[in-house]
Structure formats: C-alpha cells, structure tokens
C-alpha cells in the first residue's frame, strides 16, 4: 500500500481543515491526487472509497445535499482509520549497539506521590520548592532512578540556593557514576550550570576525568574555564599549565590559577605566588588564594617582605592622601594572605605596629591596628596581654580585645579586679576619666555579647496547627557556666550599671537585691524597650534568682493582663512555656484578656487555653 500517498492526502485534508472546507470545491491539489487513487482503487477497495471521498469533496457543492464540511469529515475519518494501520515502527538507523547499563544502581521503589511532589518542585516555580527538595533528600527520595534527570537539571535551577544544594548534596550522593555522567553531558561553552557540574565532578573525585576537564580549562567559556582550573589543583602534570594561566589576560582565569596553585602547594606554585607579591597587579589575587589555602613556609617568606615594606611605607611621605591610599593598597594584601599564619616574624611585626600606634593611627590605618590587636588577643601570651593593655590605654577601641585576651589568661577573680575592681580611689578615678561613659558601654557590650546570646536553642511552635514548625533563638549562658566562669561580683556591677538583662543572666539565688531589682524593672519598664526578648529575659532572671514558681506565675499573668509587652505580635517561646505550666485555674483569667490580643500572640493564648482546659 502506498503510505506516502496516504500521508500526502492527510497533509492536504489537514490544510483544508485549517483553511476551511468551503475552499475545498475545485481544489486543484486534491484533484491532482485523484487519478492516483482511482488507479490504485482498481486493486484495493479502500483506495476506491478514498477516491470517491475526494471527488465528492472537490465537485461543486450544489450537486450533493451535504455540505463540504461533512464530506471532509467523512473522508478524513476514513483516511485516519487507514493511516492508523500504516504506522511505521522500524528504526531509521541500522546499526544498533546493545545498551551496557550504568553503575548508578538506583531503584524505583519510592511511591508515586512522593516522586510527584519533588517533580513538581523541580519543574515549576513558586514558593516552598527548596523545603520540599531538602526534605525529600533527607528521606532518601533522590535515590530513586526517576529523579536522577531532574537532579541533574536542578544544577541549572533559577533559584541559586536550590542549584547549590543539588551541587553540594544531591549529586555527590550518587557517587562516582554521577561524575562520569556529568562529564559525558558537559558543555564547555555553557554557563552557571556547567560550572556546577565541574564542582560536582571535583567533589566526587574522579582522577580519570581530569583530561576532559583540562580541555574545558583550555577552551571553555570564561566561567567554565575558571571552574575547570580550580579542579586541576594538585597533580604534577598540570602545574605547568597552571603557571601559564597566572599570566592570562583575564582576571578570573588568573585568580583561579593562583587559587589552584595555592591549593596544590607545590614548590613551583608557591614560588609563583611569592612572585605575584613583587608586582602590584596580582598581589591581591595571590593574597586571596593564600587566605583560602595558607602555607607556613611561604608565610615566613612573606612575613619578612611584609616587615620590609611596612618600614618603607612608614618612612614614606604621607601628606598626599592619594599616595597614602596607594601605600595602604600595598600593605593590605599581606593582612589577607597572612590571616591564618602565626610565626616569630609576625609576632615581631605586630608588636612593632602596636608600639608605633600613634603613627599608624595618624595615618588612619585602623584596620592594621585591629589586626595587630586580634593577633595578640589569640596569642595567649603574657607579652601579648601587656601589649593589649598598652593599646587599651591609648584607645578605648581596644578594650574588648584586651578584655577577651585577659579572660583567657586570668582567673575569674583577677579578671573582675582588673576591669571592675580596685580600691575605692581607683573607682573614683575611673569614673572621672574622660572616656568613662564609653568605657562602661564597651565593657557592658563585651559582657553581653558573651553572656546574653551564647547558645542556640530550638523551640517547637506547638500552637501552630498549619504544620510543625521549628524556630531557633539565642539563649543566655547556662547558670552552671556562669557560676564557673564569671566572678559573682559582676552581678552587683551589672545592677550598679543598670544593665537589667545582664543582671538577669547573672542572677543567682540568695543574692540580696537582684529579685527586687528585676521585679522593679518589670513593673517600671515596658513598652519603651525595643528589644523583643526583654521581658522574657527578666523572667529568666527571676527564675535564676530562685523566685518560687508560684510567685513568678502570678507575676507573669499580671504582666499578660496588663499587656505590658513591647512586642504585640508574639510571646517569646520561653514565656509561653512558662504559661503552659500555669495552674489550670488561671484559664478564666487568660480567656478574659484574650480579646485584647491579636496576631500570633492570640493564637498562642488560644492554644494555652485549650491546653489548660484539657488539663482540667
């Protein structure tokens, strides 16, 4: 049977459907086909019928009662039925090779509902996609074969976090097979998603693929080249190429080459990085490379150079602000490159800097001084502490460095004496000092930083029926650690300085005054405070101060009743937890104030009421 002819006829009727069957009368293209059908019709009945259908369609309408549309429909229906029996199933190519199978070893045992959720997340846009994928990965859903193409596709997801998650977690979980596959489907001329593929290949670690990556590093798009160069860190055979790339015209390429050399740590590579410090052009690039992959021997050589250039810079003329800035640009890369390095030469340099505080401060190179202070803070040496004391005497800016260094070297008692103790006379003197207020504030901030936001605690948002959400909050240091690490006199210090939250954290049972102080604060302060945690911190303090629970509950409910919260939207998790421990008899009181609250706090109170009722 002549399938080509039938197919041609189908094209013609399709054309008539599009153009309209009214145009079918005397259609010359159909007419042209008619003789062939008539000829074939002599042998096969179906062609005869098709031929009749065509001629009925092209003869003018007046002859038959039916409209052209019906005739067209009849003809096409018959034609389609015939065509359905003629569909070809044979391949166009001839030589077929047996599929070898892959090493992925993935199964397909995950239920359709779970797959569908991930499929939707990775094929559509909208909110909540990232969470779905995260959850699915945690549940091992991605170990299903059917999600593999989607996981690879996710590397190019427009939502960068999702694409990065696929790069860092999902694809490496498939093992080396993923690297092979990505290398096969790698497009060196591509963009971001190709770069991510390279990162996956590097993370999975397939030395066999390096040759391919080398090619990409030579000829790919700029983004791909930079990423590929990073993958070549290490093996001896590529060091020469990396050295050449440090002289490339393009900055991202040079940057990648320096980073790869620093990571590889070869002698030639380090030499090149050192050379980069000779000029201005690549000094910063080399510095960042070394910040990521520090090298101790190179650090020593650079430290010597650092000292020389620092002395030179100090000796130079600084009157011109532009020149001053240029000098700073020479020095600052050292701070980057040597961030994690510690050696005797550097000890020397940073001491030198602190000893010449006035001159550097005059130049406005505070960053340099800060780094020196930081270096001494982490040095854990008597000498360093002495230098920091000196620095603190010069500027209150370094008080916190000095404090933290002292904290590590002195006992709790010594620390208190050093910063808050001394004789009455000393105290008087300190109070009269010019920068007394600033010193106090800095000291208080330093303490609060360490005591108030010390650890992260997770709370379940139990009242939220929409789903079980969790939330992290920062909590104050535990009472045990406070007792062990902080001198008890700090509590009095905090009350005297009127730092209620600090006092709450440091509160302990048996202290005279702290309960009264905190209760007074609770009654006096209220809506003026900006800090949302304020009231809850005061209640934590009262608990630490050993105020019996019944009293605290009464206090808390009175605060709830008087609506003295600075955050009208939501109660702090800690407070809600305390409220859940209320005696069931409080329920009427809560219900009475419920109408006054709105937003999340209302939901919380409703939850509280139902909780108390269920206990009744």
């Amino acid at each position, binding site marked *: 049977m002549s399938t080509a002819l039938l197919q041609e006829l189908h094209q013609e009727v399709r054309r*008539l459907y599009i153009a309209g069957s009214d145009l079918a009368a005397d259609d010359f293209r159909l007419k042209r086909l008619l003789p062939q059908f008539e000829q074939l019709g002599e042998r096969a009945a179906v062609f005869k019928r098709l031929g009749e259908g065509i001629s009925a369609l092209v003869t003018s309408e007046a002859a038959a009662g039916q409209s052209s549309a019906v005739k067209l429909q009849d003809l096409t229906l018959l034609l389609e039925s015939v065509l359905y029996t003629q*569909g070809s199933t044979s391949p166009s190519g001839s030589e077929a090779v047996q599929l070898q199978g892959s090493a992925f070893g993935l199964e397909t045992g995950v239920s359709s509902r779970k797959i569908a959720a991930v499929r939707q997340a990775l094929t559509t846009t909208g909110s909540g996609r990232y969470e779905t994928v995260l959850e699915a990965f945690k549940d091992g859903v991605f170990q299903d074969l059917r999600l593999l193409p989607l996981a690879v596709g996710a590397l190019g997801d427009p939502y960068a976090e999702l694409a990065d998650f696929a790069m860092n977690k999902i694809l490496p979980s498939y093992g080396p097979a993923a690297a092979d596959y990505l290398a096969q489907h790698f497009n060196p001329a591509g963009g971001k998603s190709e770069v991510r593929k390279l990162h996956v290949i590097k993370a999975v670690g397939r030395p066999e693929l390096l040759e391919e990556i080398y090619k990409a590093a030579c000829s790919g798009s700029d983004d791909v080249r930079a990423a590929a160069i990073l993958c070549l860190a290490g093996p001896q055979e590529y060091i020469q190429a990396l050295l050449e790339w440090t002289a490339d015209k393009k900055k991202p390429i040079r940057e990648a080459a320096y980073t790869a050399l620093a990571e590889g740590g070869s002698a030639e590579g380090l030499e090149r990085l050192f050379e980069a410090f000779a000029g201005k052009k690549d000094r910063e690039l080399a510095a960042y490379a070394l910040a990521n992959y520090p090298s101790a021997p190179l650090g020593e050589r650079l430290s010597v150079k650092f000292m020389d250039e620092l002395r030179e810079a100090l000796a130079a003329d600084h009157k011109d602000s532009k020149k001053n800035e240029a000098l700073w640009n020479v020095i600052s890369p050292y701070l980057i490159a040597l961030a994690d390095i510690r050696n005797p030469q550097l000890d020397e340099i940073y001491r030198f800097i602190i000893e010449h505080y006035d001159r550097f401060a005059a130049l406005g190179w505070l960053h340099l001084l800060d780094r020196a202070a930081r270096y001494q803070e982490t040095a854990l040496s008597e000498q360093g502490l002495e230098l920091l004391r000196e620095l603190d005497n010069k500027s209150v800016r370094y008080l916190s460095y000095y404090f933290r260094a002292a904290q590590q070297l002195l006992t709790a008692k010594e620390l208190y004496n050093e910063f808050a103790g001394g004789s009455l006379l000393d105290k008087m003197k300190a109070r009269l000092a010019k920068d007394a207020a600033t010193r106090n504030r800095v000291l208080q901030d330093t303490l609060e930083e360490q005591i108030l936001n010390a650890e992260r605690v997770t709370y379940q948002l139990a009242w939220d029926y929409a789903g079980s959400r969790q939330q992290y909050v920062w909590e104050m240091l535990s009472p045990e650690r406070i007792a062990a690490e902080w001198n008890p006199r700090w509590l009095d210090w905090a009350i005297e300085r009127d730092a209620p939250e600090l006092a709450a954290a440091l509160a302990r049972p048996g202290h005279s005054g702290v309960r009264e102080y905190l209760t007074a604060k609770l009654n006096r302060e209220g809506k003026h405070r900006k800090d949302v945690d304020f009231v809850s911190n005061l209640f934590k303090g009262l608990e630490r101060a050993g105020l019996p629970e019944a009293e605290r509950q009464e206090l808390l409910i009175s605060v709830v009743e008087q609506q003295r919260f600075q955050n009208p939207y939501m109660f702090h998790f800690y407070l809600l937890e305390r409220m859940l421990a209320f005696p069931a008899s409080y329920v009427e009181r809560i219900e009475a104030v419920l109408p006054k609250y709105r937003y999340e706090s209302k939901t919380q109170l409703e939850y509280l009421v139902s909780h108390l009722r*269920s206990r009744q």
Partner: protein
Amino acid sequence: MPELTSSYVDSLAPNTAAIKNGQGLVRKKSFIQLHRTENGELLFGQCAGSGKTPYECSVDFIAPENPVFRCSCPSRQFPCKHALGLLYAYVEGQTFTPAPVPEDIAAKREKAEKREENKVKQAAEGSPAKPKKVNKSALKKKITAQLEGLDLLEKLVLSLIRGGLSSIDAKTLKTVQEHVKQLGNYYLSGAQIELRRFALLLGKGEDREHGYTYAVRQLTLLHAFIKKGRSYLTARSEDPELALDHESTIDEWLGHAWQLSELKEYGLTAENAELLQLAFYSYDDKARQEFVDQGYWLDMSAGAVYKTLHYRPYKAAKLLREEDSFYEVAEVPLLYKYPGDMNPRVRYEGMTTRPVTPADLDQVHAHAHRSIAEAVKKVKNQLKNPLSDKEPVLLLHAVSISQTAQGEYLITDEAGGQLVLEDIPALSQGATVLLPFLPPVCLEHCTLLVMFEHDMDRGRLAAQPLGIIHAEGMTRLL
C-alpha cells in the same frame, strides 16, 4: 489486626499533607490519652485540637482488612489526621493503656453488625436485586434531549470546519466554551469533555501549528461520535426496553457512568482475581477538569492488562484520597470490568494483599507478547476503530535493548523483530531519558510494559516504555 508499619499507615492517608500532619500531632504530643482494648482490636484516644474539647478518635480493626476510622473532629478528610496520628503513635511504640471498649463505639459496632446481618439475610432470601424500574417517559425524554444535543454539537462542528481552524479566534473559542456548557443540559457529559479538549488545543498559549493535527483528530473523533451516538440513540428511542450497550464504549462516550451493580448485571465481573500493578501515574486532565490517578495492572491468571482510573474533580480534590503506587499483589474477591478495548477499566470494592514472589514475576514474563509484529498488529487493529482507546498498553518481551548511532532506542524480540522506543506526547513525562541509567539486568531478556500512540504527522506508531520487569524485580519508568 494487621501488622502496623509506618508505610502501611502512609498508604491509608489521603495525601502527603495528611501524613505530615498526623505525624506532627504525635511529635507535638497532642494526644492526651492513648488506649487499646485487651485483644488489640481497637485503638482509641483523645487528641487536643483547636476546639475547646479534645477530639475522640479511634481505629477499629474488628474487620482487619477494612479498618474503621472514627473521629469527632469536623474534618472532611478521611481518615483525618487524628486517626492517622493515633496509628503513628502506635507504630512509634508509645504506650497504649488497656481499657474496655467505650460505650459509643460498642453501640456503633452493634449497628454495623446489624447492617451486615441484614445484608446477609437479604442476600440469603434471594430477593435483594429488585429489578430496577425504568421510568420510560423520563428515559425517552432524556434520549430526545441527547439527540437534540448531538444536532447542536454537529452544527457547531460543521460550522467550525467550514470556516477553517485558522479563523478560530478568542471570540469563536468563547462560543465553543458556551456550547460546552450547553451540552451539559443535554445529558452529554462525554461530548462536553471532548469539545472542551478541542477548545484547549487551540486555546491561548498553545502552539497552533502543533495543535492543528490534534485538533483535526479531535474533530473527526467528534464526527464519529455524533454518527455512532445518533444511530445508537435512535435505536434506543424506538425501543426503550433496549438494554445499555455493554460491549462497546458508546454509553461512556455519551456520558453514562457505569454503576457496579449494572456491571454485575451484565456479567462483567471476575471472581478471585489477582492483580499486580505495573505502572502508576497521576495527571491533570484539563478537559475533564479533574486530576486522574491512572494505574495499569496485570491480571495474573487471565493475562490481560487492565487500567484503574480515579477521578478527583478540581473542586473536591482536597477531600479525595490520592491514589499511589502499589507494590504488592492485590487479591480481589470480585473484580468489575468496564466495557472497553485492550485495557478495560476495572474497579473493586475490597481486597487483601500479599507480597510479590518470584513466581509472580515469571507469570508476568509468561503473559508478555513474544512477537513484536503480532503485538503491533493487535495495537493497529484497535487504533483503526474511531472511538477506541488511542493509547493502548501491553506487555512485550525483549531479548535486548539497544541504541542506534542516531540515538534511537530499540527493543528486539526473539524473532529479530524490532520496535523503536520513544516518548509519546500523550504522556507528560518522558521515560527514554532513563534508559541509559538502568542497571544491566534490565536490558536483556526482560519484559517491557509499553504504551503506544500513533503520530499522524510523522506516520509513526510510537511506543513509550512505562516499566521493565526483569530477573530481579520491576523497574518503574513513570
């Protein structure tokens, strides 16, 4: 009481959100009381909710294959998250204190028992199936209306063809949509769906050039339907005693929803069938305005490939249970078969399960078509019928799966016959992209579940693999 596992509880849940919410209740410790009866047949408890009083929920395993969920919450989802939570708590190993059966549940059990007794009694008396009285005048009225509706549809279709598809603009589409609505008044819900499908093909944002071929096919389909429907309805209007046509699908096209009792009446049932799910997927059928959960199942003894269809209308989608993949063998006491072609739709009311054994997989291989040529012939025979299912599915045995230099995937049968595997437009998800990732065991001497579709433009009969059954089990590609 069946052995409770978390995957069993998952399978009871109507959707994934319910699973999450049920587990959330356990994690939030919302259950105030947890009890079980001495014999373990009943689990019950109280769960705090947003209402003032806690909800009383229970799961009754008095009939283990058919657990009864009861809860005093107002949720329309069934089973609700509280009943699921109760089961998750049990699975997690929380302590359930023994307690006697609460009064209200005892009463409910008694009532259920009585209902059951009555049913048995009625069945025993042998006079339950009162011959359904057919209201002849109403039926006649309905048929007349349907015939009128067909005329209306024909008029519209012909006018569209005369004007040409290229001239269809937003205004014409609006007229078509109005007709879709009107057809509902003429009891022609089947036609309604197909006309809407036609409108969607030419609708906004669709690639017209691509859609024309399908639109033409849709028009000839409507034409065939009008012709066949008219002659069938005329015959019925002349003889109202005439029964429904239980051999062809014309009643379904006209919008008849078969009831299980009708199917039973016509003898379209099978007893003690064992079904193994070969493929499952869900899709959004915009023409039906429903989500469809579609499964393909092998009848282990008869060898036929059936399909199950669960429709979830958009408006009620939230409340209806989403079906899911099924990995065990379903033992169905009474299977109802709809009139249909190669893959008739089936339904069942109750079933028990058993794990899949290697012998079951042997059965799958045994039921597969050994010759590609014969299978293709069978498929073409079905396709040429204008009102047939245009995407038939069958099992094919393959000696090997290979790839040509042009990138085409091929399967080869024992006689050397070949079939190209490709993705078909009827399915929204491709499967051939997965073929290179398959382990070697899937690629030789295996059985494939294949769906066919004829591609008019290219004159090809395309076949997409839905799953592969091999020596070590089953790999699903959808």
